[in-house]
């Protein structure tokens, strides 16, 4: 018989078969493959079989039966292969997702991954998703984040963009987290703010979904008697999926997903996949939340530790100062009596010595030096006397004004101007008046000693929050860090000012009162002395 189809020939040329296309030339020499892949679907083969049947060939009927069976089997095989392909893609996706979720500790990153997975075509391909989270006090469920387009135009634009970008799930989630999270939050703010359900509202569909611990499909939302109609209006869709996020027995949150743009049906298979996906998401959310809280606690502990260290340093410094105070006090008292005797007798002798007596100069020197030593002793003793301040409410503006007036004469002698500009309505400060006056006087003295003749000392008084700050700025030379530190150390000598306890004493006095003394170095030169005084009463 003259067969029209090439099925009976071992080898053929390209023009002998209408089924073999370019690129499939290997089939020209492979008869068995050519039969199953091409001939069984070829009209020439069907003609050959029909002609053979018509001529009474008994094998023709068998061949037709085998062909039918084969095609049916092949179709089934293709369907299974398609199913397997889908499953493989889903497993790959879930694997990728779980890897991301396992490695991320950032709550927002986890949420970005989760919601991207639900809405991306490479993931579950839903149009839109909202995440609701249980609050810290576990009282209610509240809208936290929404992802998806608001309308068809936005959807088309976004999906086009995603198609062209060809990003992996992780890359998409990272992009979303970095660039879109804040705007998406704002975009759905109104919806999210209204998605609030108390956990004790047991009849609410969200709580029912969480109790069931399974994905729940809500249909006919606008007419569903089990549903608050306002919820359907808020979401603007008739059909949506509720996916509870539960970790162990702990309710974490809920995902609402819908196809608000495409209105594609949500299949049982979609729901099953979402259930598989929900577990790692819930777990990752718990872990990220715990990590966030842990970070908060670590930050608190770090701050407490820093504060403790600061307090320790302060105590050590105070102890050193107190010890130094005791020593200096003891030495000072031992010196005071002999000094009194020397100076006292010198004065006594001086009174009885005539103006032209050569001894007068020597006696005057003794008196003057004794007086100077007594002044130093007074400072030293003040240093150790500064232990127990008596605090009350005082008008600092008046206090500073008083000190300025007191020093008017020496300032005028050195041709130094003193500008005092207090802010209006400075409240009273809770300080020891005597000690604070001493400190302001000493700082002003220091500024005066540093100032150039003809210069200006600027004094300002500012109030901010719980503090009043007195600023005293001189126009003296710039100060090195070492000089600044030396100025606050008892008996440390600075080039300009010599050794003194005045400023260190001020610091101790102010710290004892809960105040502070700082020395700043303004960029334009000079020194800026800052005295911070409390405008509120507190325990010290």
């Amino acid at each position, binding site marked *: 018989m003259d067969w029209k189809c090439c099925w009976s020939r071992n080898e053929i040329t390209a023009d002998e078969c209408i089924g073999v296309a370019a690129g499939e030339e290997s089939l020209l020499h492979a008869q068995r493959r050519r039969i199953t892949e091409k001939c069984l679907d070829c009209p020439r083969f069907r003609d050959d079989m029909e002609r053979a049947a018509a001529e009474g060939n008994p094998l023709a009927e068998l061949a037709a039966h085998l062909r039918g069976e084969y095609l049916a089997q092949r179709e089934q095989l293709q369907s299974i292969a398609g199913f397997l392909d889908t499953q493989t893609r889903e497993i790959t996706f879930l694997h990728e997702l779980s890897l991301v979720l396992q490695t991320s500790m950032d709550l927002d990153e986890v949420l970005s991954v989760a919601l991207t997975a639900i809405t991306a075509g490479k993931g579950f391909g839903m149009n839109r998703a909202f995440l609701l989270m249980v609050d810290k006090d576990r009282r209610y469920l509240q809208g936290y984040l929404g992802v998806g387009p608001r309308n068809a135009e936005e959807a088309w634009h976004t999906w086009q963009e995603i198609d062209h970008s060809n990003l992996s799930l992780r890359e998409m989630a990272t992009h979303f987290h970095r660039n879109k999270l804040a705007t998406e939050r704002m975009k759905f703010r109104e919806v999210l703010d209204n998605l609030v359900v108390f956990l004790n509202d047991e009849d609410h569909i969200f709580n029912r979904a969480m109790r069931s611990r399974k994905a729940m499909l809500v249909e006919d939302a606008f007419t569903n008697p089990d549903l608050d109609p306002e919820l359907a209006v808020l979401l603007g869709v008739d059909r949506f999926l509720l996916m509870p996020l539960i970790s162990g027995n702990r309710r974490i949150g809920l995902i609402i997903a819908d196809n608000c743009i495409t209105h594609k049906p949500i299949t049982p298979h979609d729901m099953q996949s979402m259930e598989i996906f929900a577990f790692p998401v819930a777990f990752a959310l718990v872990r990220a939340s715990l990590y966030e809280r842990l970070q908060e606690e670590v930050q608190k502990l770090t701050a407490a530790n820093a504060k403790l260290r600061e307090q320790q340093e302060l105590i050590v410094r105070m102890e050193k100062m107190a010890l130094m105070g005791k020593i200096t006090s003891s030495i000072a*008292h031992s010196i*005071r*009596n*002999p*000094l*009194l*005797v*020397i*100076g*006292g*007798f*010198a*004065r*006594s002798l001086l009174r009885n010595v005539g103006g032209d007596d050569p001894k007068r100069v020597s006696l005057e020197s003794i*008196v003057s030096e*004794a*007086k100077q030593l*007594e002044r130093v002793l007074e400072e030293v*003793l003040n240093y150790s*006397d500064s232990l127990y301040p008596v605090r009350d409410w005082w008008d600092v503006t008046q206090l500073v004004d008083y000190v300025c007036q007191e020093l008017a004469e020496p300032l005028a002698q050195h041709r130094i101007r003193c500008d005092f500009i207090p802010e209006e309505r400075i409240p009273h400060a809770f300080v020891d008046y005597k000690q604070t006056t001493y400190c302001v006087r000493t700082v002003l003295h220091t500024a005066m000693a540093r100032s150039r003749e003809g210069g200006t000392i600027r004094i300002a008084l500012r109030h901010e929050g719980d503090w009043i700050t007195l600023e005293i700025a001189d126009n003296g030379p710039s100060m090195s860090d070492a000089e600044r530190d030396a100025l606050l150390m008892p008996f440390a000598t600075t080039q300009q000012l010599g050794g003194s306890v005045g400023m260190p004493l001020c610091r101790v006095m102010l710290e004892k009162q809960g105040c502070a003394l700082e020395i700043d170095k303004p960029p334009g030169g000079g020194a800026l002395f800052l005295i911070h005084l409390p405008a509120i009463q507190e325990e010290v």
Partner: protein
Amino acid sequence: MTRILVVDDEANIRLLYSQELADEGYEVVTAASAAEATEKLRENDFQLMVLDIKLKNESGLDLLKEVVKERQQMPVILCSAFSYYKEDFSAWLADSYVVKSSDLQELKDEIRHVLAKRAPRPQSGA
């Protein structure tokens, strides 16, 4: 003449005070300890006492308490190298408190002031 008792454990200070106050026209008697002061107080009448607080192994404040109890008419000026005794309640029993200094002017002024305060008021001529 106004008689003043100076109590101080430092001999040089006693000498200085004696000379300076004598120059001011007072009769000055000195004592180096609380016991000696008590004895002197028994022997003589004094119009004023200048009392140091730290007396070797004694406290001038204890002597002050006794004096205030037994001789209420006699004013006492505490004279100490320590300014912080001003805050001590016991020190408040004294009529005045002076911190020691080589310049005795403040002490002299206080003596005058205290004596003037304690002096009997002149009787009005009724």
